[in-house]
């Protein structure tokens, strides 16, 4: 259950960072969000650093297809 909570928390942080609403799960394709652009990358970089202490670069973000891929960046 702990794992699930962390995933849900991550989704919430993701929504907050990109300022998006609506319900979706961790398998969602990032391309579905208009906010997933260069400004969005900056928000996400900033969020990953603030919330998870992870410093990622642009290339690591660009190859992410789904939210799972993004989540894996912090789980590594």
């Amino acid at each position, binding site marked *: 259950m702990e794992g699930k909570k962390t995933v849900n928390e991550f989704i919430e942080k993701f929504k907050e960072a990109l300022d998006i609403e609506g319900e979706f799960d961790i398998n969602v394709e990032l391309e579905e969000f208009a906010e997933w652009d*260069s*400004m969005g990358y*900056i928000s996400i*970089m*900033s969020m990953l650093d603030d919330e998870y202490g992870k*410093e*990622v*670069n*642009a290339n690591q*973000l660009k190859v992410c297809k789904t939210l799972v891929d993004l989540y894996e960046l912090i789980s590594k």
Partner: protein
Amino acid sequence: MAIGELKNVAIKGISCCLPDNKVLNTDYYERFGRDLVDKAIKMTGINTRYVTIKEQCASDLAYTAAERLIEKLNWDKDTIKGLIFITQSPDYRKPSTACILQYRLRLSEYCAAFDVNLGCSAFIYGTFFGSLMMSNNDINRMLVLIGDAGSRYFSPEDHSAILLHGSAGSAIALEYDPEVNSSIKYSLKTDGSGFKSLYTPAGASRNAYTAKKEPYLHNDGIMRSDYHHFMNGLDIFQFSITKVPKTIKEFLKHYKLDNDMFDYLVLHQPNKLMVEKVAKKIEFPLEKTPINVEKFGNCNGSSIPLLIVDKIKTEAENSRIRLLTSGFGVGLSWGVMDLTLKHITIPDIIYSNEYYTEG
């Protein structure tokens, strides 16, 4: 390590000049669309910027700032023996714009003058060079001039850059002063592997025969020619929030300094988010981290002088304040400095559209 201490040097005055041409970012609704502009404003915090008029060069802003500062300091021009102009927007490919400024300012022939091609790290490097040049006792007064006209060199379609950049010129007056009891400590760094994160592919020697004059579609969906400035905002963001705080921490540790020893953290102003992130990462209190990027945009090398003139003028004029300061960007080049300002001269910000007509 380029880390060290400079003694017997004081900053005597700082002045800034902006174009008398205020631009609102909301004026770009039509060109870039309301959503995009609003989002950029929200993220960067930048509402207004001052942009050079067509005929105006960065050196014109620096020239005006210098004239006003010399006048207010009441310096005899013959006593100024050095002039450094730091810019990425020189008047010509040759000669050094500093030579033209020496002439325009009517400084004596007994004056060393040269350009330095740096951007957002200019204030730190300029204070370093200027101080070093006075270490031999032959030069007692120096002018470090900084100027850039950022936004005019980007493609008109480049929303990722245009909405962020303003123009500004600044002048810093340095004097040899054996009475000064505070040293200037510095750390200077470079990572040239990131040179393509902020660069202009054509216009100088490299690519001279292959450069495309006509704009073409780049990977980020923006039309640019090879003569336009290019900025990879993501790379710069990542660099700024990782290497810069790391260097500041390393610097503080090296000199056994503590955040509490400083009155202000004076950072280069690329945008609000980056400034706050850097402050947060070194755990410096935000209330002692002045920000003015919302009014002026990213003014490259003049951001730091402009922040001092705009936000801490009264204290710098009337008391003694210790600043932890850092400039970072194009190169990639960055630096940190521990700098004390004591009773310095600061004219009010000048707004001017004057330009050199003999060029």
